[in-house]
């Protein structure tokens, strides 16, 4: 059993990154919980659901407008699902009506399971309705129809988004909803940033699940990611120095 050439450095790096994360998780288990910077977008979720409750209008959650749980977008979908789980719990607690939409059939059953689970945790399983989670083909035109029809008060969109992001966000704005957006599909980030009230930019959304759980062990995993960034910065600087000394490290990165 040998490593495939061209993937050796990637494998080693993956192990190092996992090592960072696991190290911090273990530290957190020992009670040394790292401090995190505030993420206003996540703190705004409570505010958004609270306002929707006061107004008696529903909360809309979207876990992406494409990208399935079974392909390379999975990590973004999972990040969206963790936000959905949190919002569903809040909605169950305050008896706020919730509507979660997805155009991706693969994600639909798991979203529905997550919402049901959140209601069960708050002992409100009887309030869970199958129409809380809706499969919406033709998302770009149909989701806004649902948003207008239900007159939503909060629009939370975290997940892999394509061109639909700006449509959803603008219609949400025209309804006067509080909007929280987050995505790691880079070409949609500009719209989320421009038209939402609160944003999770790229990597921040991956921290969402851990951040919202307030579970020290998961928070540890976020601190682990930071060392990955330090590794990237150091590698760049080291590469530059070596390059100046006439020695190229590039081929080792491609090993």
């Amino acid at each position: 059993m040998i490593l495939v050439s061209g993937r050796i450095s990637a494998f080693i790096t993956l192990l190092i990154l996992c090592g960072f994360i696991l190290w911090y998780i273990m530290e957190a288990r020992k009670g040394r919980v790292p401090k995190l910077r505030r993420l206003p977008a996540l703190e705004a979720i409570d505010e958004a659901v609270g306002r929707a409750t006061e107004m008696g209008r529903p909360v809309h959650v979207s876990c992406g407008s494409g990208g399935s749980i079974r392909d390379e977008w999975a990590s973004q979908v999972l990040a969206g699902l963790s936000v959905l789980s949190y919002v569903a719990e809040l909605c169950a607690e305050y008896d706020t009506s919730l509507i979660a939409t997805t155009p991706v059939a693969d994600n639909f059953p798991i979203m529905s399971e997550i919402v049901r689970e959140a209601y069960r945790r708050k002992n409100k399983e009887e309030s869970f309705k199958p129409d809380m989670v809706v499969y919406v083909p033709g998302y770009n035109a149909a989701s806004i129809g649902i948003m207008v029809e239900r007159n939503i008060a909060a629009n939370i969109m975290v997940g892999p988004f394509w061109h639909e992001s700006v449509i959803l966000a603008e219609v949400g704005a025209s309804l006067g909803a509080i909007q929280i957006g987050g995505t790691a599909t880079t070409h949609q980030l500009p719209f989320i940033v421009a038209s939402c009230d609160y944003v999770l930019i790229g990597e921040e959304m991956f921290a969402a699940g851990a951040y919202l759980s307030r579970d020290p062990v998961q928070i540890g995993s976020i601190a682990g990611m930071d060392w990955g960034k330090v590794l990237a910065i150091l590698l760049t600087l080291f590469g530059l120095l070596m390059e100046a000394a006439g020695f190229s490290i590039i081929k080792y990165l491609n090993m």
Partner: protein
Amino acid sequence: MSIFQRLGRLDPRVFFTLLIFAVAIPIISPLGLPVPITQPVLDAYNYIENLPEGSVVLYSMSVAGGGWDDVGGGVIATMQHLFSRPVKIIIFSYFADSVPWVEYTLNNIDKHGKKYGEDYVWLGYLAGGEAMLAGLASSIRSITTTDAYGTPLDNLPMMKDIDNIHDIDLIVHAEISTIFEAYLRQFQAPYGKPIILICPSMMVTMYFPYYPNQAIGIIGGVRGSAEYELLIHRPGMASVSTDTLSTTHILIIVMIIMGNIGYYFERKIRRGE
């Protein structure tokens, strides 16, 4: 409320209407505004123009309905260019939706006497996502043993000696979604094969970091397509659309200015209170 203040609080429907006019007018009477040529498009053109005789090109036609208007011009233009060169072309689709568009493209180009089966092959829609691409690189026959029409690949003269990525000299990939990175992972990173990318204009910013090391040329959206149409001297659907780009973009600039004037006066009055 003053007129200036009102500029900052316009009903969106006002500019929806203006937008319709900005799009419609150049379509009804074309203005014929000029288009300068950019480097990524020129690189793609030069690479295809200098392909040695007998090269094999794998053409991934993964464009579907929604984005056809943006990248269709580039697809037709590159396909036309390839057909005018002495190369062999293998076409496949990553998405089922792209199938009608492949046929549409092949019907709308001058084939320069190229014969099906000898000079080009259409494999049809190949399911399986990224795993399919990986399979295609190791052996085309592990993914499909027939072409789109059900003819076994071994009965097609040009496919006799072609089976894996090492037999292929260039990959042209046209897409409207974001699957290009999968192509990099499966074709470019492990085997170092050159890829030319045809993508919607909005994806250009996202994919620009990959140019020129990983993607040797990028044809982005209507504008890149119009440039390519100019390069091969066949103005087509993209060239028609470039006029509306000018008018709509100017409309947006005007609106941004109006929004800012409105905002400026609004703030001035609020400060005065």
